[in-house]
C-alpha cells in the first residue's frame, strides 16, 4: 500500500494521472449528444473543464480551444450519466427489528464502498444513486445521495450540501412489507396511525425548538430521530415512499398533504389505476419495472405499461433499479421496456436521468448535459434503448470511472470470475490505465 501511494504521488508530479479531475479542457467530438434538456445534437461537441460542463452544442456553435484534449467519439452517443432514485448497493443495513419507525438510522453509517455493486452500477452508466434502507419498516431511516466517482470510503462518495453534510431523504413504506408482529403494525390503518402519531410528535418537537429560539435552557433534549423528521417537515428532506397498491398510493398522498411533506412515490405498481389522482396531487413517481407481474399480492398488477400511462396523465416519471431487485447494468433496458409498453422515447430517457435528478433535489447539478452542471456523462456504442448497445465509458465530474476496453472494468460489465468480489482499495491517482 505504501508503495502504491508513493507511485501515486509520482504520477501526479509527472502529470500522468490522466483520469484525475482535470484543470484543462476536454473536448468530446463527433458524437450524437442527448442533452435531455434539449433535442439531440448530431455531430456535437461536449466541452468539459474542472469537472463541469463548459459547453454543449454543434460543431458550428462550440469553438474548441486549441489546448483542449480531444476525444473522438464519432458514431457514438453521449448522454448524461444515469440517475437511480432507489438503490440498495453497498451491503447496507438500515433500521433493525426493534420498531417500525426509525428516523434516527442513517444508511450513511452502513455502506461498504468496495461492494462490487458499485462497479456494476457504474458499468451500467449510472453516476448518481440514492442509497436507501429497505421497505420492511414504515420508516427505515435516512437515505444518502451518492456520486459514483470512485472512492475508498463512503465519505469520498456522498453528495454534499452547502455545509458539506451528506444529502439524502427519508425512506418510508406502506402496504405489506412493513406489516408483521408487534411492535410492527398488523393492518394498513394501524400503519397510517403509527406514522401520523410520529409526525405529530415531530411537529411538537419542531414547535418547541422554534419557541426556544436562542435560549438553550428551553431547547428540548436532542432527539436525532425527530431532528430528521423536522427536516422532512421543513421540506429539506424528501420522503421516498415505497408503495404498490392503488389505495396505498392514495394513503401516501393523504399523509403528505396532512403533514405537508415533499414526497416521491416509489415502485407505484398500481399507479396506472390512479394516474389522474397522482397527477392532480402533483406528486412525482419513481417506477420500477420487472419482467413479470406478481411475486406478492400487491405487485400482481405491476405492469410494464405503468410509466407510459403516468406520463400521459402528466405525472413526472422516473425509473429506478432497486438494485439488487434489478441490476444496475440493465437500467437503460428498463427505460427501453417502458417504451416497449407505451412510454415516449424522450420520456423514458428523461426518466433515467433528469427526472430522477429532480426527485433528489439534484436537478441543478446532474441529469442533463447543460453548461455549469457536473460533467457526469456516458459514451454509448449506439441507441440507448437497444439491447445491442454497450456503455463504453462512464465519466463522473470530468473523470473517467469506467472504460469497457479495460479488462478489469469489462469484468464488472459482463461478469465472470472475480466479478462478485469486493473491489480493491481506491488510490487517488492510481487509475485503470496506470494499473495495467
Amino acid at each position, binding site marked *: 500500500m505504501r508503495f502504491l501511494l508513493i507511485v501515486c504521488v509520482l504520477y501526479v508530479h509527472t502529470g500522468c494521472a490522466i483520469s484525475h479531475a482535470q484543470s484543462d479542457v476536454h473536448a468530446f467530438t463527433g458524437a450524437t449528444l442527448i442533452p435531455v434538456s434539449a433535442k439531440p445534437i448530431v455531430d456535437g461537441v461536449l466541452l468539459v473543464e474542472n469537472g463541469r460542463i463548459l459547453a454543449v452544442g454543434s460543431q458550428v456553435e462550440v469553438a474548441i480551444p486549441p489546448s483542449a484534449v480531444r476525444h473522438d467519439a464519432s458514431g457514438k452517443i453521449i448522454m448524461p450519466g444515469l440517475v437511480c432514485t432507489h438503490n440498495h448497493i453497498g451491503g447496507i443495513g438500515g433500521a433493525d427489528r426493534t420498531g417500525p419507525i426509525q428516523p434516527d438510522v442513517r444508511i450513511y453509517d452502513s455502506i461498504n464502498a468496495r461492494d*462490487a455493486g458499485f462497479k456494476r452500477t457504474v458499468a451500467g452508466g449510472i453516476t448518481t444513486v440514492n442509497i436507501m434502507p429497505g421497505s420492511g419498516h414504515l420508516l427505515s431511516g435516512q437515505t444518502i445521495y451518492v456520486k459514483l466517482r470512485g472512492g475508498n470510503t463512503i465519505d469520498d462518495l456522498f453528495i454534499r450540501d452547502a455545509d458539506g453534510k451528506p444529502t439524502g431523504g427519508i425512506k418510508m413504506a406502506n402496504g405489506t412489507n412493513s406489516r408483521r408482529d408487534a411492535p410492527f403494525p398488523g393492518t394498513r390503518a394501524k400503519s397510517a396511525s403509527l406514522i401520523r402519531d410520529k409526525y405529530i410528535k415531530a411537529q411538537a418537537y419542531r414547535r418547541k425548538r422554534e419557541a426556544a429560539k436562542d435560549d438553550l435552557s428551553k431547547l428540548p433534549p436532542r432527539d436525532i430521530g425527530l431532528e430528521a423528521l423536522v427536516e422532512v417537515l421543513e421540506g429539506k428532506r424528501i420522503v421516498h415512499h415505497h408503495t404498490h397498491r392503488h389505495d396505498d398510493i392514495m394513503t401516501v398522498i393523504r399523509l403528505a398533504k396532512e403533514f405537508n411533506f415533499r414526497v416521491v412515490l416509489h415502485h407505484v405498481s398500481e399507479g396506472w389505476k390512479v394516474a389522474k389522482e397522482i397527477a392532480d396531487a402533483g406528486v412525482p413517481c419513481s417506477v420500477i419495472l420487472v419482467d413479470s*407481474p406478481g411475486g406478492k399480492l400487491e405487485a*400482481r398488477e405491476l405492469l410494464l405499461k405503468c410509466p407510459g400511462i403516468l406520463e400521459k396523465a402528466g405525472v413526472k416519471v422516473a425509473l429506478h433499479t432497486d438494485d439488487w431487485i434489478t441490476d444496475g447494468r440493465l437500467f437503460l433496458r428498463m427505460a427501453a421496456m417502458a417504451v416497449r409498453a407505451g412510454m415516449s422515447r424522450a420520456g423514458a430517457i428523461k426518466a433515467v436521468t433528469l427526472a430522477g435528478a429532480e426527485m433528489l433535489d439534484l436537478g441543478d447539478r446532474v441529469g442533463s448535459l447543460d453548461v455549469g452542471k457536473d460533467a457526469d456523462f456516458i459514451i454509448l456504442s449506439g441507441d440507448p434503448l437497444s*439491447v*445491442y448497445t454497450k456503455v463504453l465509458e462512464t465519466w463522473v465530474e470530468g473523470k473517467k470511472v469506467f472504460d469497457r476496453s479495460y479488462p478489469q472494468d469489462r469484468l464488472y460489465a459482463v461478469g465472470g470470475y*472475480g466479478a462478485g468480489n469486493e473491489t480493491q482499495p481506491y488510490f487517488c491517482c492510481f487509475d485503470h490505465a496506470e494499473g495495467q
Partner: protein
Amino acid sequence: MITRSIPITVAIFLASLVTTVAHAQVVVRGRTVHTMSGPSISNGVIVITDGKISQVGPANSVTIPAGYRVLDAEVVTPGLIDAHATVGLSGILNYKHDQDQLEHSAPIQPELRAIDAYNTQDELVTWIRSFGVTTVHTGHAPGEAISGQTMIAKTFGNTIGDVTLVESAMIATTLSPSALKKGKPKSPGTRGKLMAILRAKLIKAREYQQKLIKAEADKKPDRDLALETLARVLSREIPLLITADRAQDIASALRLAKEFDIDIVLDSAAEAYLLIDEIKAAGVWVIVHPAMYRAVGHRKNQSFETAATLKHAGIRIALQSGYESYVPKVRVVLFEAAIAAANGLTFDEALASITIDAARLLGVDERIGSIAVGKDGDLALYDGDPFEYTSHCIGTIINGRMVSDKIR
C-alpha cells in the same frame, strides 16, 4: 418497420377475436421467417392445417388455400421453448398456497411428479405465452437434493392432459448450497453430505433395479415410487437435471454421472466457463442460467457471456427462465436470450437456444422447435427483431390456434 406493421396486425387481431377456434386453418406470412430448419426465408409463408405445419416456403412457392385465416408479421419464429422453468408450479402470488415447486419434508423425493402440480392456468403461464413461449420444460425447483420430476408442456390448454408433451422428463437435482440445511439436526448440512446421500440413494436404486430384474415374478420387491423413478435414471431412460453453479459443484455433478454411468444435464452452471474441457469431455448439455439472474451468493461470478463461451467451445446449450423465489416471479426466456445475443451469441445461436436446440435437448425435436412440414403449428410473431427491447410479440400460435393476440 415497426410502425408499418402494427396497425395492419392490430386490425387483423381485432377481427380475429370473434373467430378464434381450436385448430383453425391458418396462414402466417412473415417478412422474415426464421425456420430454424434451414436458412431464413424472406417473404415466407407458413400454412398450418389441422394444427400441423403443412407448407412452408417463399411466398411464390406456397399456395395459400382458400378459407384460411391469414396473419402478417414482420418476423416469424418457431414457438419459443423455455428449456427449464418452474412456471405453473411457482404461481404468481408467491404465497404458500400457490407455491408447489419445492417440498421440504425430505431431501430426496424423486417420486414427486410435476403433472400432479402444474397449474395450466396460472397467470404467469399466460404471461410468458404472450411473448411467444409455446412450450416449457417445467417442474420441481432447485433447493433440495432431489426435489422431484419435471415435465414438458405446451403453454395453452385447459387440463394437464391437454398440455402435456412429456409427463416425466428429468429429475431435478441440486448440488449447490440452496440444497443445504441450517441447524443441528437437519441434513444434508454440507456439500460432502449432500453427495453422500445422493450416492447412497442411487446405490439403493441400483440394488432395487437388480432385484426387479433377477427376481421371479412372484418375488418381486414391493413397489417403491422413489426407487423405481431413480431406476429409470440408472437405465438412462431419463437424465438427472443437476443444478450446480460453483465450479466444485459442477465437478461433483460430472463425478456423479461418471460413477453411476447416467445421463445428466447441467443446469444454471454459473462457473461453467472454468470447466470447459471437463464439460466437453463429459458430452453433457448445459442449460445456462438466465443471463439476468442476480449475481449474488454462489452465482456471484456469473457472466452475461457464459452462453457464448460454452457454445463457442463446442458445448451444447439451451437457455431458460429458471427459478425465481421473488421477482420477477417468472422470467421470460426471450428476454434472457436477448441478453445472450447481445453478449456473444449470434442471432441464430441465441434463437436456436430457445427453439430447435432446446427441443433437441428435451428430445421433442420431432414435434417442435423449428418451422417444418409435419411439425406442430407453434409460431411466434414479432413486429421486429425479437431480441430488441422495443420490439413486440404480436401473436402466439399453438397447434394452429391463436393463443395470444396481445401486443407485448
